[in-house]
């Protein structure tokens, strides 16, 4: 969902959100503001990019300080873990039998890398298939 395997033509509907270089440090996690939203951009352990909501949907902690682990980002407040699609995959403080995490998903956006830059597109803004 985040990294298109097909060549993509960058048109005006794509927004440049960062340079590829910005994610080349020890910790590939940076804040991004795009589409009127506070977001966090990161590269997971599979090398794929995720662009998801910046604030934990639990109680609003800032995922830019999230633990970069388990192929995603983990909120330091209560350990909620998110993958690059924004899907919550674990809620380790909730009771063992809780399935609440399945219902929790952060907003996420399609991301591509082109010529040293990272572009994002609002999935909702994609033209209808013809």
């Amino acid at each position: 969902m985040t990294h298109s395997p097909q060549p993509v033509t960058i048109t005006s509907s794509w927004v440049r959100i960062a340079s590829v270089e910005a994610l080349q440090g020890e910790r590939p996690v940076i804040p991004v503001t795009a589409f009127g939203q506070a977001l966090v951009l990161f590269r997971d352990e599979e090398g794929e990019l995720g662009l998801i909501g910046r604030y934990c949907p639990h109680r609003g902690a800032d995922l830019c300080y999230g633990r970069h682990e388990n192929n995603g980002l983990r909120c330091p407040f209560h350990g909620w873990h998110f993958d690059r699609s924004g899907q919550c995959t674990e809620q380790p403080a909730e009771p063992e039998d809780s399935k609440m995490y399945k219902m929790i998903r952060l907003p996420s956006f399609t991301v591509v890398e082109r010529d040293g830059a990272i572009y994002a597109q609002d999935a909702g803004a994609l033209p209808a298939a013809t």
Partner: protein
Amino acid sequence: MISQQLNDLITRIGPDTAAGAVHRKYWQPAALTDELPDAVAGEPPMLPVNLLGERLVLIRDAAGALSLATREAAADEPPAHHPARADIKLVAGGPTYPVVEKNGICFAYLGGGDAPAFPNFDCFRAPESHVFAFKGLWQCNWLQALEIGIDPGHASFLHRFLQDEDPSDGYGKQFRDKAANTDMPITQVLREYPRPEIKVEETDFGLKITALRHMDGDLTHVRVTNQIFPSAICIPMSREMIITQWHVPIDDENCYWYTMFTSFQNPVDKAVMRAQRLKEHSLPTYAPLKNRANNYHYDPAEQKSLTYTGMGLDINVHDQWAVEGMGPIQDRTREHLGRGDAAIIRYRRMLRKAIKELETGQAERLPMQDRQATSQLVGPLSNDAITGSEDWLAASLAADQERRSAAPWDAHI
């Protein structure tokens, strides 16, 4: 998730707000006794105080009596503004409020009419030698600051140490002692058992919150903490000390924590406790040196190897990051509370009930408004215990009783 309208109702505390009216029915920490300057050239000591959206001055008159008066302030004054003595101008005929000093904190009552009684809690009835008070600035609304204190689950994550320190180095710090009567550091219990079973009961003063961590070997860790209405908590710090902490609004988007560290058996080493905390704060505003502007000294390498946050070993900084990161007023229209948030949900219900009762002229129905009954309130029990018994309640009471009976002051409950 709640509506924007409800979020506004329960967070905003200015002079003409519903939640502000609730706060004003209670004694509020206004300043540390340590902050009061000495009289200069016969002029009475004056200390700027910013409380509940009001711009005030704490004055000690020639006879030693304390009171709060209103001072002139520009509309764009910074929230924790601290004008010099020469720049303080009182508002002639402005509101004044009564102040009572208790074990290092000057409490003010802004509610008009008769002030309520002080409960006979440990922090108030212990002798001055056994209580140390300090404060710190958090740049966010008071409610998110309070809510982290009634959330027993977060300590297993936010305050997780990936390696344990030697508990004998932990004097005066939270979560550094051994757990109850075991050799296990409390940090290890929190780390290994992250899904506490949480029980919440309403009490005469607020809420009793019990977090049960069911451990290997049929042991149960029982941690009892409390919400004291409207803005305080009372929690264990070590086997020797408890913490009573208020989250006092400066305005809608800033608050001070005021803490009374209360020791049962031995007098508090105030010089050590003060030095530990002065090292982390800048006076006169008591703003923490680690803050949003310097990313709380966040270190990604430390986050991988030593602490869950990468922000050092001081757990106050972790809490500060969590609550300030939510923004000036947490947007609760986007929150998703879980079962671990049981006490938060219960507290908001209490606050809404109090708002309703005040609006319908039933102030006497709010917690701790009856003078006679409130002055009889003792405790509350705040304790960590580990037991092999199924009767964890009895074990919790017995462990608490042990340190209370060792206290040289009347700590009975």
